[in-house]
């Protein structure tokens, strides 16, 4: 089956991932590469330094070097579908440390944008953080907590000053940054 499909499109990538039996999507790869400036994934020589320093590594089902490898081979759909890209803490260590100027984090940003474009499911927690930023300026909203006497307390009860909402200028800047990323 696959071989025949291969024969129909002579110049496509001829690689098959045997665990998923998926074939690379070249058009999507080109789109992805266009999103990421100078830090092309095919420069990667798999020293795996990015993975060795990644703070989100435990939460990732695909490790940074695997993301780079899949991207350069053209398995983009898999990456978008995996949900892995949303777990990145964007600490930028991988970009900073890469000896070959590959930036897994840039790839991850690009993949997030692609995911939004393709209307893939964005994890709720990620959306929560986004809305938290818009409401409070923090990644996480201040949370209620319970004392030893099993008393529920919040900032108000503790007489702590109220957070003021971020002003319009911040929001405008925030949306502008998001737009920039989308480009």
């Amino acid at each position: 089956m696959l071989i025949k499909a291969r024969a129909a499109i002579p110049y496509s990538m001829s690689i098959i991932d045997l665990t998923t039996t998926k074939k690379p999507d070249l058009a999507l790869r080109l789109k992805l590469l266009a999103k990421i400036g100078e830090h092309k994934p095919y420069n990667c020589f798999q020293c795996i330094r990015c993975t060795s320093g990644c703070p989100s590594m435990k939460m990732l089902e695909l490790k940074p070097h695997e993301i780079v490898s899949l991207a350069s081979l053209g398995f983009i759909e898999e990456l978008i579908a995996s949900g892995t890209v949303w777990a990145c803490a964007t600490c930028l260590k991988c970009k900073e440390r890469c000896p070959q100027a590959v930036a897994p984090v840039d790839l991850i940003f690009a993949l997030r944008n692609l995911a939004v474009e393709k209307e893939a499911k964005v994890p709720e927690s990620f959306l929560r953080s986004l809305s938290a930023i818009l409401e409070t300026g923090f990644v996480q909203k201040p949370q209620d907590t319970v004392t030893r006497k099993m008393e529920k307390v919040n900032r108000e009860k503790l007489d702590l000053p109220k957070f003021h909402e971020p002003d319009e200028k911040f929001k405008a800047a925030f949306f502008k940054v998001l737009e920039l990323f989308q480009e």
Partner: protein
Amino acid sequence: MAQKEDETEESRIGVFICHCGLNIAGVLDIKELVEFAKTLPDVIYVKDNRYTCADPGQDEIRKAIKEYKLNRVIVAACSPRLHEPTFRRTVSEAGLNPFLFEMANIREFSSWCHPNTPKEATEKAKDLILMAIAKARLLRPLETMEVPVTNKALVIGGGIAGMNAALDLAEMEFKVYLLEKNESIGGHMAQLDKTFPTLDCSLCIEGPKMVDVGRHPNIEIIAYADLLSVSGYIGNFKVKIRKNPRYVIAENCTGCSECKDVCPIEYPNEWDIGLGVRKSISVPFDQAVPLVYTINKDYCIECYKCVDACGARQAINFDQQPEEIELEVGTIIVAIGYDIYLPYDNPLYGYGKYTNVITSLEFERLILAAGPTGGKVVRASDGQKPHSIAFIQCVGSRDINKYPYCSNFCCMYTLKHVIQLKEKYKEDIEVYVFYMDMRSNFKGYEEFYQRARELGVNFVQGRVSRVFEVPETKNLIIHAEDMALGQPIEVEAEMVVLATAAIPKKGTGEMARILNLTCGADGFFMESHPKLKPIDAPTDGIFLAGACQGPKDIPYSVSQGSGTASRAATVLSKPTWKIEPIIAVVDPDKCRNVTTKCGICAQKCPYGAIKAEEGKPAQVITAMCHGCGTCVAECPADAITQMHFTDAQIFTQIRAALKTNPEDKILAFLCNWCSYAGADLAGTSRFEYPPTIRPIRVMCSGRVDRDFVLEAFRLGAGMVMIGACHLPYDCHYINGNWKMKARMDALTPMLHKLGLSPERFRVEYISAAEGVKFAEVVREMTEQMLALGRDKIKAENEKLRPILEKMLKRKKII
């Protein structure tokens, strides 16, 4: 046994004891040593100096030799590895043969390593002096030999390494014979398209060099010829060569190609790995040097059209016969190169089974503009350009079932191929490289790898498990695991290129036999020393250049070619070559080879310096002997003597060392290059160890005869140790330590059976850098010796003595 050395002349021994400032005098009681030396027989003169090696000290030695008519000189001072040459010169200036001098190492071996036990250290120094005097009595004058040098060189192999060697030597005004097996010089480099990492055309840079070689007045190319035999030694090799018939008279052939044009017969061109064809009378490639046509009689139908075409030049002679010539040369440079492994026997990659699976060398001929396809990369199955090509690395290399070594240049030429493809066909071609490690060391190579990645080549890390062919399309399906993904993948490619191992040239073994070289486990020639003599063959006067010693790329081969030229010039530039007199000599009266088929010495000699012909006594080729003494220890009839380290000399040293309280002593045989140097280092580093050890210096641990060990135990030695260079490759005489190991592995169980405690005899491998280890070993052995106790050792020795006496008496040693 060399005990027959009769003492014809009376020994008159002078002993000079050095204070070395306070280095020796600060610990040892020099006065006591002087008094002790004076009591010894044959000692005529004893003197202590503050610094014996300084001019006044040397003057005293020279004066004393003349005044007291001394004929043996002992200097008790530092290590002979430091000042033996100095004092040898001193005594020879006073008219004494330099080999009548002996040193007692009382600094490194006594004062420096036993600073807190001066009394015992002085006792040890006395023993060392006693041992030196004992040996000195048996010393014989030796003369350094000189052999004449023929100042011509033979270079075997006209590849890039051999050509460079020949050119450099010719430029130094030496006559060079360049022997080439094929019709033309040039080697593998002439087959290549581009060279990495600069991508310049291979033949464009090699061609001019080939022409230079062909034109140089000092170089005589002997192409299309085989090496038959080599005899002789450094400076004086006699070489027999057979020139194979080309059926074309080289002198008359102008290389005009008119004969080729009329020849009707074509056959597969080996030069193109069979991808192209050549005429029955032709040259393998147009730039061939020498440009002489050759008729292949296997294909020729003898239509004689070529004879007509040649006409008045009369260059064609169908009756040509093989011709044997003899040359005399002073040095030989071996540069026979390598072969490419053709993986017919590997069913997994389908070479030879699937038409579109080729080797890298075949690919090289495909992409070469002057190649059989005119530089078009096409598939053999349909003549079409492939749209996807997979390169598989390490085919045969790095595989213990095939060739365990890394073939060195495959990574780089594969990078070259993928870059060429990507630059030529751009997006029109998809390229995969399956690799394990990308080895891109050396200048500009890593950047080359980077360039390949930037061009968008897919590098997949992981060894390919299998290649299948799709029968309809003749495409190939490659199964592999992508290590980066951790997932199995499958690639369909229209062509597969295998980067196969570089293997020893066919005939390397035969060449090794002719030239008396050794091959390593990988089948390539062994160098004399992996670090310090990387281009010297173990046989003096023979040098190794290029890939015959191990796979090498072009720059490395070129530098080795030039390197060997300069090494060869060190010999050729001299009218005579000096040969150290510390060599082995066979006593023809004792040699068993006359009556029985023995030849053990010839087998065991690491240098192949001994000839044992049936019915004749074995003969040592003096100029080839390196003086390790392995044969001396191996000889079952004790018919071989090593000059300056004779059996008698060593036995008398053993006896002197064990004269008093042998149960409290460790007798050690230390090889000059590693263990003795290691012991010296323990001294210079001031590592303190118990003063129980009595070392005897031998050139190589291979010299240590089992009789030495037996004699030591017969005399009641507490412990015996043999110090050697580390296995497997550290021995300075190639493999003397292995020979010693085999010998001692056989002896040890016998001694144990006779009741010797296992810890009392041991073999230690100590390098020149392991002073700590030496001190540690002595400490450990001393502890073991004390733990055993003198009584137990004595009891064991009593039990052993009659048996050992019987064994040694049988050999007439006692």
